[in-house]
């Protein structure tokens, strides 16, 4: 692991730790409303001020970070696992399976990612509880985000299948199942790791875009997407930039760090 990666991981670790310790760091819950302090600027009591419902922005930022930073990797893991199974099996088995998977991948990739996500998300129930909306949003990201990685994994598998050690293992009579799990998948690890890291910022951004379009995590549960939705009231934000500068900065910094990790991982594989 390079020095840049270590620094990026350390900063991300601090952000994750702060979000996990939200209960201790924040003075109130993310949904508690202070009716006497509506839209107040940052102060000793409310470090990042309050929103138009009198909720502590700092508490909402910490809890929102927890939702976005912990669930995006979970969705990326799901997408990578689906991609590994589908792409790996297609590359390994070849023939009609490979053609079928390639057609499926082409179908998924023929539609812009955000359009696909938006269309499928809008078809699912919108008036659900906040927890269900979180699960639906991130499960959807995981289930729809496999196509791009699957294409790369299929190509990587095709290269590996023709390599000497696999041909030798196959010739020595090892079962196809064992060959796939014990010899092929472990050698695909660099590609899988790279795809996992690359997917995380993509999913964080997708959740933010969905949240801004009103299709993300339901209120009162905060996420970066739902917090950014306040940007719609741009005249208020323009007069009081403290309202959203912290969340925008956090999204940008975390996105950059994740990209850095993904890029380094991709370059090293």
């Amino acid at each position, binding site marked *: 692991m390079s020095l840049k990666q270590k620094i990026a991981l350390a900063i991300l670790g601090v952000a994750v730790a702060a979000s996990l310790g939200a209960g201790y760091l924040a003075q109130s819950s993310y949904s508690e409303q202070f009716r006497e302090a509506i839209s107040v600027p940052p102060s000793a009591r409310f470090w990042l001020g309050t929103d138009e419902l009198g909720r502590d922005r700092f508490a909402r930022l910490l809890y929102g970070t927890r939702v976005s930073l912990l669930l995006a990797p979970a969705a990326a893991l799901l997408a990578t696992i689906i991609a590994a199974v589908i792409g790996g099996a297609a590359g390994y088995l070849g023939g009609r399976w490979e053609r079928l998977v390639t057609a499926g991948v082409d179908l998924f990739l023929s539609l*812009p990612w*955000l359009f696909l996500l938006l*269309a499928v998300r*809008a*078809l*699912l129930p919108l008036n659900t509880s906040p927890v269900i909306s979180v699960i639906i949003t991130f499960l959807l990201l995981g289930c729809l985000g496999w196509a791009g990685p699957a294409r790369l994994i299929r190509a990587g598998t095709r290269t590996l299948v023709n390599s000497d050690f696999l041909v030798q293992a196959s010739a020595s009579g090892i079962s196809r199942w064992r060959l796939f799990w014990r010899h092929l998948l472990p050698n695909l690890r660099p590609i899988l790791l790279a795809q996992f890291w690359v997917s995380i910022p993509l999913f964080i951004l997708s959740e933010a875009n969905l949240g801004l379009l009103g299709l993300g995590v339901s209120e009162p549960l905060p996420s970066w*997407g739902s917090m950014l939705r306040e*940007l719609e009231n741009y005249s208020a934000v323009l007069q009081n930039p403290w309202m959203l500068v912290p969340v925008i900065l956090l999204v940008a910094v975390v996105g*950059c760090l994740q990209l850095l990790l993904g890029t380094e991982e991709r370059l090293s594989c």
Partner: protein
Amino acid sequence: MLSVLLRQARRILLTVLLGGLLGATLVRLGPGFGVDERELDNRLSAESQQSIRREHARENNVALFYVRYLGGFLRGDLGFSRSLNRPVAELLRQRLPLTLESLGYGVCGGAGLGLLLALLTVWWRAPGSALAPALLSGVCLAMPAAVIALLFLWMGAASRWAIALVVFPHVYRYAKNQLVATAQSPHVVAAEAKGLSSWRVLWAHVFTPAAPQLAALAGISVSLAFGASIPIEVICDTPGVGQLAWRAAMDRDLTLLVTITVLVALMTLVVNSLADLGLAAWKNSAPPADAGSAVA
């Protein structure tokens, strides 16, 4: 060449047809499909309400709906948008030019900026010279498209340039890697050793050989630009196809959603195929690698 063209056309047609069917099936299976608020309107007579129900019943069988839709599509009839109460063809006629113009500006602007900065990075090899473009591309890549749109809205700039900022980092990163790899190849070192000017080396020996690979970015740029146009048009209230796609999805307007799906898939696949064909034609026409090194 003709067989390649036919194969590509067949692949595009099959993918588009499957995409449309998938879109229709998803909408049909989605909860709340077929619910029409007009049925709650007490002013409508029993006959009118029956007529509304009959209208929905025709969409219940996805296969039948899709076959009927495709038949109409071939005759130039794209159906009727239930949510906007207007023919889909009319909606597209009004909105498509605006979105295509935005996509044109966005893709050209983003690709132009990305290529320019990538070329400057390769040309100006001073330590740290790549830092500023890398930072800019990293920030643009890490920002949701909707946030970029709002920043543009605040600044009073046209939203189409927001699309350019979404496309730019993808083009820059790919182009930079491609150009750096080409700049390290032996023929470039030989050209520099012969004393050619740095601009000539950059243009004739680095950019030109890498150009076909860079052209492959066209397909992904169009797809990215359309994806970005959805939140950007919604946030900026631009009456384009991106906003229409959002309305269709939110209102579960089957006819409109299927038409947009078919249209977008067709556009993406055609641009991708053109880029692939261009790359294949260039590979066929280029001299073999051995011949190039022999000349050098």
